């Protein structure tokens, strides 16, 4: 177990390092001068030079990169060019909103997908199965930025049940979370169905049935317990994808999270904040996947033993 843990941790650190470096160099190689953006076109050359020095942009790129890495280790991501405030503070203020949205979406997705996937597998080929798979196909084909406005049209404008946008109170999270959770529920229910179908074809399930156990018991105790391991991995990966997809959904609903901060900062060419947002989202993604992997090997002894 320790060897596996260490190799997994090493991998995570490597990925974070790679992502950090990638983002840093991308930002420094792309055209567009932040100083110009901040001061406008009418600024004098001397003012520009002063600001460039103040921001450290006149130093060699390699030196900037090293000091950036050193800063990341201390959770110091520099100051926002626009807000005149540390990036870490900005991110902290936005992170809770994104987490709230992502977790709510995840819960909604699980609540939809688990019963649907089980039903589809238990009644394979039935109307239920067709319906569930139809939903799954629709769910992956409908983009967030269209589903969101559609939901707003029906539930906010026509029925007036939920606010159109923003983050105020419990009701405001419902529509963004459904928007974000639908595509995930689609993928998840399909996975649960196929994983469960595979397990239900095993010999021990036939034995359990032959023993005269109830359908419910066979399905839950013997089927689901074995089927949900691959589902768990997918769940971890999906939570990461959720955080990525949250960028679009947050923009649709004006949700004050990290994703909308990213888009705002891109438009303002606020490089340190863009860097910070990408870094934070990928860090979350990597950590969630790491935890899923560890949980997976903890739950399933076959994996733990195989890797020893």
């Amino acid at each position, binding site marked *: 177990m320790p060897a596996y843990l260490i190799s997994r941790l090493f991998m995570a650190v490597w990925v974070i390092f790679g992502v950090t470096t990638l983002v840093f160099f991308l930002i420094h190689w792309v055209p567009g001068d932040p100083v110009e953006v901040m001061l406008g076109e009418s600024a004098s050359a001397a003012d520009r030079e002063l600001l460039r020095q103040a921001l450290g942009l006149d130093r060699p790129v390699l030196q900037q990169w090293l000091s950036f890495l050193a800063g990341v280790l201390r959770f110091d991501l520099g100051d926002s060019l626009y807000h005149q405030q540390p990036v870490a503070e900005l991110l902290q203020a936005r992170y809770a909103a994104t987490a709230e949205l992502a977790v709510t979406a995840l819960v909604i997705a699980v609540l939809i997908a688990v019963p649907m996937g089980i039903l589809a597998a238990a009644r394979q080929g039935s109307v239920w199965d067709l319906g569930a798979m139809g939903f799954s196909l629709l769910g992956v*084909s409908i*983009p967030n930025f269209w589903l969101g406005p559609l939901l707003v049209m029906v539930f906010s404008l026509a029925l007036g049940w939920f606010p159109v946008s923003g983050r105020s109170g419990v009701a405001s999270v419902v529509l963004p979370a459904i928007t974000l959770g639908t595509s995930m529920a689609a993928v998840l229910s399909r996975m649960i169905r196929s994983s469960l179908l595979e397990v239900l074809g095993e010999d021990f399930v036939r034995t359990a049935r032959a023993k005269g156990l109830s359908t419910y018991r066979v399905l839950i105790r013997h089927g689901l317990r074995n089927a949900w391991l691959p589902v768990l991995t997918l769940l971890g990966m999906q939570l990461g994808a959720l955080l990525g997809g949250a960028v679009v959904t947050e923009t649709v609903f004006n949700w004050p999270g990290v994703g909308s901060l990213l888009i705002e900062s891109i438009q303002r060419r606020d490089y340190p904040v863009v860097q910070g947002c*990408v870094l934070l989202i990928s860090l979350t993604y990597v950590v969630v996947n790491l935890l899923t992997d560890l949980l997976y090997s903890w739950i399933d002894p076959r994996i733990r033993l195989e890797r020893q």
Partner: protein
Amino acid sequence: MRAGWSGAVLLLWALLALVVPWLPLQPEQISLPAILQPPGAHHWLGADDLGRPVLDRLLMGARTSFWVACWVVGLSVLAGTLIGTAAAYFGGLWDRALVLIIDIFMAFPGILLAIALAGLLGPGITNLVFALTLVGWVGYARLARAQVLSVKHREHIVAAEALGTRAPRILAWHLLPLISAPLVVEATFGVAAVVIAESGLSFLGLGVQPPDASWGSMIRDGVRYLLVAPHLVLAPGCALFLVVLSVNLLGDRLRDRLDVRSIARSAP
């Protein structure tokens, strides 16, 4: 029957994208009296907030999404397959470097990188294609690599090597036909992903720039008028949804037809 209409949608999409330059469209014709006009006899799908005909803009959007999908998927498959097969076949340092790169890209939400890249490079269709390709090739490289690793020790390849066949010929004639089925299926789903990604980035204002039209930017402009002119969001959204749905259906059918999963499973 299901195959019929999804195929028809895709055919229509491709056909329209190809003939749009020769159609008498006026997607940039601003007309004040027509502002936010609902669908009617004069404008079949109504007019947008500048009085431009939605149908004409929809067709221009079809062209945008079609060409972006073609370029991104084409370039990604080409680059990914080349790099993946070569790395797996020759092995060694290049292969290890590729695995490290793949690991980074896979442990990272691709759309996030595409958003950051497209945003930093500045909006525009070329930058969009570049950003999506840079993110997209990795999946194909991983798939091609895994496939080549599983078939490269088969007898006919060993025989070809023993006969002194050059490596490029082995890759192109003896390996590629064996590994192409999963790549074709992956590329089909890739088209759906790219169509959504292009519209998504355009929705965020990072893709196609006005006055050019993309389904994503049409939805973005329409969201402001949800209450008074819902057709501005419904029309491009339906087009987008139909195309993506049809591509996904086609992908499902191809996967069943080519029996991709069982190929992958029988591999040692």
